[in-house]
């Protein structure tokens, strides 16, 4: 096994929510998994299965109650808020179901935002943001605000924002959930293209048709991994 190519390494991750009193919710009971560079993984599960909690932990939005989480070989499970913010900024590109763009800012500024938090200078920021928007096919839409764009275009801006800092993984939470089928397919095609270019993609979804685009499907149920299957043999990084 080539350890250097492991991006995400979860070992016996548990997440318990204290609901007050003696009541506790075990969102994740005991989860261990590894994701390597240039994998295209779908995490599936019904609501309440713990997949959102798993995604939050993978995305460094939340920390596990116990267990070890190594990101690119660095232990992130005990990091404080600011350290986690830095990891999210540099290593993780989020794509959300509801796009989550800033309504008052145009596409360019939305895409620039991670670069602002990364401390990139203004001219370089504009250049990179422009490049990322061109990459997702929105080079002509840089000055449009989200409400002047279609749903598919908004999600492309979100993808450009996720990619602009050249993160280690792209973490997409139901990226087609708010799109019609045709537009959803277009976004999935974009993801496939990004995967071919070498990006590591983690897709969280409950739709089989969307999960089928991934090359590996992890099913979560009751806070445990139910199954973990490789559906398409990855040529570049064999598992």
């Amino acid at each position: 096994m080539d350890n250097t190519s492991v991006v995400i390494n979860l070992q016996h991750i548990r997440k318990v929510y204290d609901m007050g009193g003696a009541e506790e919710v075990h969102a994740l009971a005991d989860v261990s998994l590894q994701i390597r560079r240039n994998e295209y993984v779908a995490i599936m599960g019904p609501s309440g299965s713990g997949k959102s909690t798993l995604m939050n932990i993978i995305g460094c939005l939340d920390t596990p109650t116990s267990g070890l989480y190594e990101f690119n070989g660095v232990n992130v499970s005990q990091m404080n808020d600011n350290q986690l913010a830095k990891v999210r900024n540099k290593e993780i590109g989020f794509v959300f179901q509801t796009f989550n763009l800033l309504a008052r800012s145009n596409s360019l500024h939305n895409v620039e935002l991670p670069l602002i938090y990364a401390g990139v200078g203004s001219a370089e920021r504009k250049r990179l943001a422009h490049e990322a928007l061109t990459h997702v096919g929105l080079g002509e839409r840089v000055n449009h605000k989200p409400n002047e764009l279609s749903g598919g275009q908004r999600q492309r801006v979100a993808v450009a924002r996720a990619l602009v800092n050249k993160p280690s993984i792209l973490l997409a939470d139901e990226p087609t959930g708010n799109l019609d089928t045709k537009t959803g397919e277009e976004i999935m095609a974009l993801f496939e293209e990004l995967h071919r270019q070498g990006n590591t993609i983690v897709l969280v979804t409950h739709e089989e048709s969307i999960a089928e685009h991934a090359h590996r499907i992890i099913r979560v149920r009751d806070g445990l991994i139910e199954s973990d299957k490789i559906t398409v043999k990855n040529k570049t990084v064999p598992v």
Partner: protein
Amino acid sequence: MQIIHTISELKEGVIISLQAIRANKMRSVLTTLGILIGIVSVTMMATAIEGVNRAFEKSASAFGSKILYVQKFSWVGNDDWWKYRNRKDLKVEYVDAVARQVTLADAIAPTVDAVKDVHFESHSMLSAWVTGTTSSYEQASGTTIEDGRFFSQEESDGGRPVCAIGANVAETLFPSTDPMGQTIKVGGYPYRVIAVFEKQGGLFGTFTSDNRIFIPLNSFLSDFGTHHGVSINVRVAKDADLDDAKEELRGIMRKIRHLNPGQEDDFSINEQDLLTNVFGQITGVIAGVGFFITGLSLFVGGIGIMNIMYVSVTERTREIGIRKAIGARRRTILFQFLAEAAMICLLGGIIGLIISYPLSLIASQVLPTAMPLSVVFLALLVSLFVGVISGFLPAYRASKLDPVDALRYE
């Protein structure tokens, strides 16, 4: 690198806050109203105090900053009036004795005062302040002659019937004619006007030269009697220290009065600083009370800002979540909302200044003042300060939001 980072974060914070203000124009304006009122009252207060101070300084300069006044009464702190009242009057003869012994002074002039009615043709000035003095008075006072010349030593020694009059006296007696060379009646005696003083203005009309008529000491003594107490003006030499000169003068006066080492002074040495100090205390109290009251209005304004910032943070919980997800640190979020609060307050401060500037022009009709630049900066600084203080708690709450909860917020 860190500096560039911080600067771009600052810039981002300001841009976001301006966007937020633009998006909620009416709300921002209403919120900032409290600050606006506070800033208007603070600037008007500061402008008024500045005006009174300037008026005072102008008046106090009439006494001259390097002139000591040896007198029976002290200008300030006459708490035990009878003690001063029972002191022996100062005598004209002291002047020569002082002049002989003093080393740190370069001009000495005695003054004797009386209140007399003054007439010129049909014009009259009742209860004018008539001062008998010598030719040295011009040096040993803070006055400036506008027209003519002060009386010479010969005129002063010889008791000539000449006079130098203050600006208000000239205006009252000679509304349409040139006073120079005219003869006026002072307490019934004729005096020829040979000089008019420059107007001093200010708060102490009686004490400035404006309402006074100066005549030679010997004329005064022969026309109005010798029973008046004398006060002695002593100008401290240019290169001498005021306190040294005061000490020397005190020693000389004690010798003249034959005081034993243990005895208290039975005269007072007054100077401009005494008035300045007392005045400073008075304006200090007024300013303290005034700023406390205006500070209250700023405080109320600050509460308004804090309230609306809590609303703003709640409304934008999701935005905070997004920003955190893509790498905004706590500090960044904190600054964003602090910047917004500060911008709203600054807006109020600027509008406040725009309103209070014309008001200060109106005030300048009464007081010799305009809004000083320092007040402008003070107002902007205060409004920024209020913004940062009142924005802190809401901004802190925003910065502490959990990104998962914030993203889920509808």
